[in-house]
């Protein structure tokens, strides 16, 4: 018996002839927060709806707490759902909303009252029992929706784009709160989002999806540092790209032949063939005369963008590729546009990915 609270085995769902979800498998461990991340139409919401029981997979199986969900209706699964629009029942008070699930699951009246008050305490809305949902702010509604789902003590919590209906500032604050609340309840959770920052900030692990398939499952850190596909590298954060042909040189070492010359890389288990180098902007640095990086490239500075704490410097390489590098905005003198510079990176700071990016 594994510790997986939720297990998806080779789930496929077709709408018409198109597969919305294509052979998706993953596990969620007890107490873990997992993010389903991807662009709209990648199948993450359909996956969530299949876990909740609103859609039925065409192939594959779903296990919650070790039980096969094949014949379980939504109301027979012990799953807590927080909808994108919160879906608080507008004709019920906050207390009635929170009590709804417990009533259906046969919790005793006295117990319900106690647990409603306790849940409101835990989401920092004490004494709000008699309010109507419409009298609450977006953030408060969000927290009531969380309380309503959590109070039934579900095996797993599913949150569908939980922050997309809030403005940017509130989003940041609520991201922390959600993390705290989910932590307090120690609840295993899945968060569906298209916002990489939200996924990085909330999740222990991220399932990155694209066109119905899983691109990569990893911790936020690993997903950013060592993406395994062009899509993963492109979707998360910013990146510079240099295309070429990889040839292996025995062991882990290899070299990518590019228009800018040969660049030494750690090729990992990648075979020879078309490959693309991905270098994060903060790993590409302006070189002073003494620097001895693994790779140095000649470039001409085109412009600067100040983002506040950082300065983004756009430079053009010899082959015409535009690259960006990040420098801390600490008052150091930086080369003006038009200046010839050298940009460099260490072998460990770049990732080699299979395939070529389509020319932009």
């Amino acid at each position, binding site marked *: 018996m594994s510790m997986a609270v939720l297990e998806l085995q080779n789930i496929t769902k077709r709408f018409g002839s198109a597969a919305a979800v294509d052979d998706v498998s993953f596990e969620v461990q007890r107490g873990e927060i997992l993010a389903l991340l991807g662009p709209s139409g990648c199948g993450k919401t359909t996956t969530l709806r299949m876990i909740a*029981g*609103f859609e039925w997979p065409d192939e594959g199986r779903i296990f919650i707490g070790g039980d096969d969900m094949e014949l379980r209706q939504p109301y027979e699964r012990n799953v*807590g759902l927080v*909808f994108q*629009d919160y879906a608080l029942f*507008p*004709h019920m008070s906050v207390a009635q909303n929170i009590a*709804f699930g417990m009533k259906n699951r046969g919790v005793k009246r006295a117990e319900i009252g106690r647990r409603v008050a306790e849940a409101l305490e835990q989401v920092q809305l004490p004494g709000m029992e008699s309010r109507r949902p419409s009298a609450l702010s977006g953030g408060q509604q969000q927290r009531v929706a969380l309380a*309503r789902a959590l109070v039934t003590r579900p095996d797993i919590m599913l949150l569908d784009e939980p922050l997309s209906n809030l403005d940017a500032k509130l989003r940041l604050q609520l991201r922390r709160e959600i993390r705290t609340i989910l932590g307090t309840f120690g609840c295993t959770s899945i968060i569906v989002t298209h916002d990489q920052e939200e996924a990085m900030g909330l999740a222990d692990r991220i399932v990155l999806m694209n066109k119905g398939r899983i691109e990569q499952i990893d911790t936020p850190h690993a997903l950013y540092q060592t993406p395994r596909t062009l899509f993963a590298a492109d979707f998360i954060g910013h990146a510079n790209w240099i295309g070429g042909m990889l040839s292996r040189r025995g062991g882990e070492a290899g070299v990518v032949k590019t228009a800018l010359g040969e660049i030494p890389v750690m090729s990992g288990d990648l075979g020879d063939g078309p490959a693309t180098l991905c270098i994060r902007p903060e790993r590409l640095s302006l070189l002073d005369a003494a620097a001895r990086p693994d790779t140095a490239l000649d470039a001409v500075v085109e412009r600067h963008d100040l983002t506040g704490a950082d300065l983004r410097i756009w430079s053009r390489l010899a082959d015409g590729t535009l690259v960006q590098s990040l420098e801390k905005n600490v008052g150091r003198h930086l080369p003006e546009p038009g200046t010839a510079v050298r940009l460099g990176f260490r072998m460990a700071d770049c990732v080699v990915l299979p395939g070529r990016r389509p020319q932009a």
Partner: protein
Amino acid sequence: MSKRIADALFEAAYLSLITLFIAFSVIPVLVALVLSFDARGFMGPFPPTQFSLRWYERFLADDYYHAGLATSLIVATVATLIATLAGTLAAIALSRATFRGRAALQAALLSPLVVPNVVLGFGMLVFAARLGIVDGMTRLIMGHVLITFPYVMRTTAASLVGIRASYYEAALSLGAQPWKALVQVTLPLARTGILAGATFGFVTSFDDVGVSLFLTDAFTYTLPVAILAQMRANLDLTIAALSVIFVVATVLLIVLLDRLAGLDAIVGRGVYGR
């Protein structure tokens, strides 16, 4: 400059149109109101010279009208109850249906709105005769269910459209079986639509002549049919008194509904008002 004149002309035309419209709809009621208090025993020139309550007294004393009023109230109430139940269920079923021909089925269920009542009445008469139903009350209720049903279905369907699917799904995920989710979440949210449909249906039933004319018999007749018969037999101003009672009753019904659910919610905003 000429543009301003055009604007002024347009505004004047617009205002006169509204004024005319209001005049046309209000004046007949006012005339009936005034005439109902006429003390003269015949239809004299307007306005009356003396006033009395004689037509109201006559109405109150006339068993013929009483029987009609009682029948009308029973028919309208029973028909509205049946139509509300059936119309609500039909609207819910249609709102979820995905099969082909859904639109056609909806159109068929709504068709009593556009088919002339005379046709419906005649059809129901033949249908009831075939079924061996000769009882006037049963026939009337059958016919009136037919004309009130589309109102309930239409307004309920409209309010269901405004209820986000996530409410129902949230109820399911909170452990409610489908029927519980329906009764505890969907129906309360659609209640303004249901209530509006029932109100329109009740008024339509209470008001109907076309269908009722075919389905009444010598002993069971509705108030509008009674008025029509009286008008043919001996035209007197009891009808004016009755009209006033009708208007007052309707206004009372609307006020009552406003108290119960908020008229605004019923005719305007729909679901999210409260």
